[in-house]
Each structure stands twice: as C-alpha cells, then as structure tokens.
C-alpha cells in the first residue's frame, strides 16, 4: 500500500519535471537529410540569356543542438484524481541533419533554376547574376503532454498523451538580381514549410525531428520556387 503512495508522486514527477529534458534527448536521437521532390513545372525550352549564381551566403541560422523549452505547465494533485498538462516548444539543431544545410540551400537553388527557370543556368560568365543571402529561419514546433493518474485506493489508472506539431518553418532571404552590374531587383523572399500533427498513444517522439526536417526542406523548396518565379517575370 505504501508503495502506491510513493508511485503516484514519482510518476507525476517523471511526467512533469523530467519532461523537457526527456523530450530533448528523444529528439536528439533522430537524424535525417534535408531533401525534397522538385515538382515545379519544368521549363524545357530556355530563353537566350544566361544566368549564374554570384554568391549564396547562409548565416548561422540554425543552432547546433536541437532543444526543447517548456512554455507552460501545471500539475493538479487532487490526491485521487491527478492531472498534468505541459506545453513545450522545440527548435531543430543542425546536429540532427545528415547533410550540410548551407550547401543544401545552394544546391537546391541551382537545381530549381535549372528546372523551372526560364534562363539557361551557367556556372560562370552569365548575362545575369543572382546573389542570395539567407538571413533567418524561424520555427514553431510545439509539443503538448497531457496526463492523469486516477487513484481509486485498490486500483490505479494512468494515462498520458503527447501531441507534436504542426512544425512550421519560415525562412527569409534577400535576393539581388543584376544584369551588367545593374540591379534588376533587390528584395526579400520568404519560404514557408509545414508538416502535420503527430499524435497517439504509440507516438514515437523522435519522429518529430523528422517532421521538423521535413518542414525545413519544404520551406527551402518554397523559397527557391518564389525566387525563380520572380526571376521568370523579367
């Protein structure tokens, strides 16, 4: 009987206080590659002028390690009915990425220019030149943990659910397009990526790292497509 009285506070302590650190280590155990399917409309017949990339600068927009921060939470210890609810916010670190994210920005942009750009992409000496600077990545990746222990003297019922998501990523970049040294446009572009909510009793929380990587991949896709669409307008 005594052990039950100890079990309940212990369970609540584990569920509550150990939450952020436990979630963080689960997220850090998963790795994945930034990659996406290029599904924009292919431009097979290119126009006469050529386009090259002057520079792609990517600031240190991702932290080293994936982290989880507790946003809010409460425990309601009503002795027989004990409830807790915690909300967390996670942030992807580049240690979880299997490929170099800075290189991925450049490679995927080149691929998009070759695929859907109306100008011929060349490695050097183009009629036009584009410079890109990735300034920031903002990410919202919430997680929620709700649980309860019902203690009915001779029986104990325990339940806990975790929701993770949606992971949303906003990437911002400046792009400058020049022809013979003259600016054609100089503007800020945004790319948005979003993945669905993961939930359920058998949820493997490390899958949320994959969801954040997927959202980041999709935001880079969206950014590249937006820049190429603007280039195609001239």
């Amino acid at each position, binding site marked *: 009987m005594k052990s039950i009285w100890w079990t309940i506070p212990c369970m609540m302590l584990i569920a509550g206080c150990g939450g952020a650190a436990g979630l963080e280590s689960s997220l850090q155990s998963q790795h*994945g*590659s930034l*990659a996406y*399917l290029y*599904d924009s409309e*292919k431009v097979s017949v290119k126009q006469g002028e050529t386009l090259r990339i002057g520079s792609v600068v990517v600031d240190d927009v991702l932290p080293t390690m994936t982290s989880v921060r507790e946003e809010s939470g409460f425990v309601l210890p009503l002795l027989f009915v004990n409830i807790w609810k915690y909300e967390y916010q996670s942030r992807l670190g580049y240690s979880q990425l*299997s*490929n170099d994210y800075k290189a991925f920005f450049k490679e995927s942009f080149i691929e998009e220019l070759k695929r859907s750009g109306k100008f011929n992409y060349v490695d050097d000496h183009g009629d036009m030149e584009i410079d890109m600077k990735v300034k920031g990545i903002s990410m919202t990746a919430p997680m929620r943990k709700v649980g309860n222990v019902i203690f009915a003297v001779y029986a104990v019922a325990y339940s806990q659910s975790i929701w993770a998501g949606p992971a949303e990523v906003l990437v911002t970049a400046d792009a400058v397009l020049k022809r013979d040294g003259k600016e054609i446009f100089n503007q800020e572009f945004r790319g948005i990526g979003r993945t669905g909510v993961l939930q359920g009793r058998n949820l493997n929380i490390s899958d949320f790292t994959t969801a954040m990587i*997927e959202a980041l991949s999709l935001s880079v896709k969206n950014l590249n497509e937006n820049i190429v669409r603007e280039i195609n307008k001239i």
Partner: protein
Amino acid sequence: MEHLAHRLLFIPPLFLLLCSCSSPARYQIISEGSPEPEWESTEHRYVCLSPADAKNYPHLLALRTESDVLAYERRRTDGADPVEDVLFHLDRDDYPKASELLRRHEGVIPEYLRLLLDADLAYEEARNSVSTSHLIKQYQDAFDVQPCGISRAIIQLRIRQARYLR
C-alpha cells in the same frame, strides 16, 4: 452440447481469417479515372497506370483487397505478360520476386513504371538501410516521367512514408 461448443470454437478464427482476406491490398493499381485514393493512409501504396496500360490491364485495376488478389491468382497464367507479372507480384507483396522480374524484363517494362517500381522496391526491400535522400532522388527520376496527373500526390505520399521509416 459439447459438440456445439467445439463448433463454436472455430468461429473466432474463421471470422479473423475472413477479416484478413477482405483487408485492402497494400499496393493499389489505379488509373486517372479511379476513385480518389486515400492520401492520408500510411499503409497504401499507389501505382498509376498510363491510359494505354490501364486499358490493357483492367483486371489489375480491380484488385482492391487481399481476397481479390487470391481469387485472381487462381485464374491467372504465370509469366504470360512481363508487366502483368511484375504488378501481380507487387500486389501480393512478394517484393523479391517483383524485383527479380523487373530486372529480368527491364527492356519491355515502360520507363515510367520501371523507374517508379525501382524506387518502390528499393524502399520495400531495404527499409532500414536505404537513405531518404537517395530514395527521393530515385523518386525524382520517376516523377519526371509519370503519365498521370495524380502522380505528384502519389510520389509525395511515398516520400512522406519513406521519411518516417526506421
């Protein structure tokens, strides 16, 4: 009475057997005119046939459940047509056989189907070892030659399934 009780014991396994036979087949062969697939399903894999192939293989399009596949298996002739052969073995979840047939008949399988099935079978056979970026590259090659408008959704779904593989 005892005899009846013995008979009753057979009902749950029979019921389970019936349920498993009518469960949906993992691979669904579809064409542009097929009913809207369940994109949210994590279990289903879709292969969309070109209009010409859909006309040639209407019986494959009709295989929706595992019992459909079993019934079709009883009346088909093995090895009669390479495309049918590969798709049939895919439908009955025999991936090593489908893979072997795909390699054997490489020259006669339409390119769009060969590239898609190549990626699918790599995914099915090497679940834990194949890298997501390599798979996406394979699906990219397949995507660019797909004859169906719904292939974008099919391949995006497949990539999502591959990302969350372990």
